[in-house]
């Protein structure tokens, strides 16, 4: 059980402030959904958490300690949005996953772990030798998910992980995310633009708009009684509401 806390985080690209004074807590063993449009800074916040974007101000703490962004043990893992870019085209999917397994296990253990993880994400374990180019987008994203889990993380940042997936797989991944989170006590920052998905997965939701968090609270409350105009606009845009 680990708590991830953002304290007054600011990330700037040149003169552009992508993340502006964001404070957000992902409580231990909870899923916080982060919604907002592209350019609102939610992906930058995620990248800052795993050390891919330098902070200009503020702190990101894991159980009160700064998140380790050096060394081999990374308790914070991230799943990227684009499965076409997040897997090395020259490495087999088995190698990609094995690379993220913490060191100290034997070759056979790694192989077994890769197979277990592939099975976990609904991929045929015998395809560990396949290259990403042989897989569909949905299959690639499942490999990316397996790779993140290979690091045995205590917190997972999921950046729009289902937006490139088929609905049938999306359901399976969301079920997987929920179960894993519950059984393994994972804390999770779940970034998505799909409110129905966030509603299903997250216990808390934070709405990000132009680099700031404009509203946050328990999911049911925010979705039922949105305070901010932007949250209301998001709710109005959920497809399928205007049925025939």
């Amino acid at each position, binding site marked *: 059980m680990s708590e991830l806390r953002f304290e007054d985080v600011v990330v700037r690209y040149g003169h552009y402030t992508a993340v502006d004074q964001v404070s957000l807590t992902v409580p231990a063993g909870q899923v916080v959904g982060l919604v907002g449009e592209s350019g609102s800074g939610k992906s930058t916040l995620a990248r800052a958490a795993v050390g*891919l974007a330098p902070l200009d101000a503020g702190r990101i703490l894991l159980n009160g300690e700064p998140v380790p962004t050096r060394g081999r043990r990374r308790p914070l893992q991230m799943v990227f949005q684009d499965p076409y870019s997040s897997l090395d085209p*020259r490495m087999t999917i088995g190698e990609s996953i094995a690379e993220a397994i913490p060191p100290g296990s034997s070759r056979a253990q790694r192989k077994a772990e890769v197979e277990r993880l592939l099975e976990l994400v609904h991929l045929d374990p015998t395809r560990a030798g396949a290259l990403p180019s042989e897989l569909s987008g949905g299959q690639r994203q499942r490999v990316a998910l397996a*790779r993140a889990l290979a690091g045995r993380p205590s917190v997972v940042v999921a950046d729009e992980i289902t*937006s490139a997936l088929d609905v049938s797989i999306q*359901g399976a991944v969301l079920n997987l995310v929920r179960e894993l989170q519950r059984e393994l006590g994972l804390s999770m920052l779940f970034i998505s633009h799909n409110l129905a998905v966030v*509603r299903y997965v997250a216990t808390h939701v934070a709405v990000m708009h132009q680099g700031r968090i404009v509203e946050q609270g328990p999911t049911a409350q925010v979705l039922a009684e949105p305070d901010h105009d932007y949250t209301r606009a998001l709710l109005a845009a959920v497809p*399928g509401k205007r049925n025939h």
Partner: protein
Amino acid sequence: MRRWRSVLRTPLGLTATVLTVGVLVLAVVAPILWSDEANAIDTSNIMAGPSAEHWAGTDNLGRDIFYRTLVATRLSVELALAATVVAVLVGLLLGTAPFLLGRRAGRFVNAGVNIAVAFPGILLALFFAVIFGVGATGAVLAIGLAGAPAFARLTHTLVAAVEGRDFVAAARVAGVGRMRLLFRHVLPNVSEPLAVNATIGAGGALLSFAGLSFLGLGVQQPRYDWGRLLYDGISSIYVNPWAALTPGIAVIVAGLAFNLFGESVAKALGVGMVGAIPRLPDEVVETTEEPAVDAVDHLGSDLVLDVRDLTVTFPGEHGPIRPVRGVSFAVRRGESVGVVGESGSGKSLTALAVSRLIDDTGRVEASRLELLGHDLRAGDTSAQRELLGTSLAMVFQDPMTSFNPTQRMGGQLAEVARHHQGLGRRAALARAVDRLRAVRITDPEARAHQYPHEFSGGMRQRAMIGMGLMGSPALIVADEPTTALDVTVQQQVLELLADIRAADDVALVLISHDVSVVSEVCDRVLVMYAGRIVEDLPAAELESAARHPYTRALVAAVPDMTTDLDRPLAVIPGRPVDPADVPAGCAYAARCPLASARCRAEDPPLATEADGSRVACWHAGEPIEIEIQDRELVELEEVEAS
């Protein structure tokens, strides 16, 4: 490896390869075979012209120049390769230093490289030659170091491009160290262009060597390379021109060989898979598998699109792959048809086939493929291009890659009107601005002068739709138009499509994996699975009256704002069918809770029901027991145990 082999398939590539291999073989064997002839001193026959005995004459000690040129191949090639190795190693070191050292230190290295690149290579070589002294070693270092900055710059650029990709970020997050990142992820992905440039660099080094030796700064007596022979021969050029010409020709041939080889490899790699894919045999595939289709009313004058028995075939490693297997549907004027299915179901290929955008490796066949009554199977004629260009608008998933990033938006839209409607520059631009306004882009005059990267994703997608509206389309084919967009923007784009359809009676084919999007916009929905339409029904009945078990599973799998949070989402067990390995019988049988022996043996035809909807299922409409304890949970228990 396959792509490298394709180098040999062009005449130039073949010639270059043969020449390069020839030079290398000569470099190995010439000193073994002809050293004695080359070093034999014949004082009675010095500075002689060409003769039957000495083809290129003799030098001032009576040695045979032709044999000396052949033997000099080894030293010349050796030195050139050594210099190339120096250039590549130093270049790699400098080029990857910014990646390893981080941003601040990397900037210094880059600045140094940038300054070094600005100096002419030969000047650097002369400078280093003076430092390292006259001789072969000095010349190798000089030419190698002179070539290093350019190579460093190239390496840096390539590394920076790969560094920005997510897989490097993912490896970083996984805790992979910089060195391992470099050797496992970055270098393998830049190795091909680097290898090609090293080959071209070897040709350049060969020429530079000849130059240095010719200036007397390179190889010293008694050793000799081509440059040295040239240096010796030039003094007697009026007595025996061949003494200088022979090594000169050798330099040119070898230099050309390396350069052309590098160029043809670059070309082969750049073009991609050309020549590597087996061609499809020219047999005609019978497409009359589905006579039941005639039951659909394809007649009537208001048909915009009429497709029957459409198949798309691609060559595969183990025989042809058919991702679209006999698709028949029709779209009426103003009608909005959704196509849903998982990735690999053939929905996008169906759209591409209709738009005639399947590339040359694939083959599109149909017993009928008509747009506004015109047969599209005719092939790539100007009349067809005209028809497709003005009557059909295509909207792709990724609006960023649909536009040329170096051209202004207005110009790109205007091009359509200038090309297809023959408008002048001014009139075409005016129409472009008008169309941008029609797709609700604010301040279209100013926006038309901007570049694609200055548009947001939603705006680009609207501009893409605007581009389709430059003509007067009767049909808009939108392939996952909102998948890359935010929900609020998605809503705007969908509303825009709906409004255009209502205003101009334009038909819409909307392809999406998202059932909720399709059910919101479309009148009718085609559900595709494994390259076939398995159900065709009114969108309003999608949630209530779908009859195919796959359709019902798809609908149940999408969470909405009323989904029960205490139960797992419905999932479709198993995996989608691989188009290369479609099972006998119903393709969905393996994942279907209703599947019986008949399903596994016999593919159900797409049967038309009394109300005009179509379904391909032996058990259409039979109740399905909702099973929550599915495969998904079984696997999760394993996780828990481990």
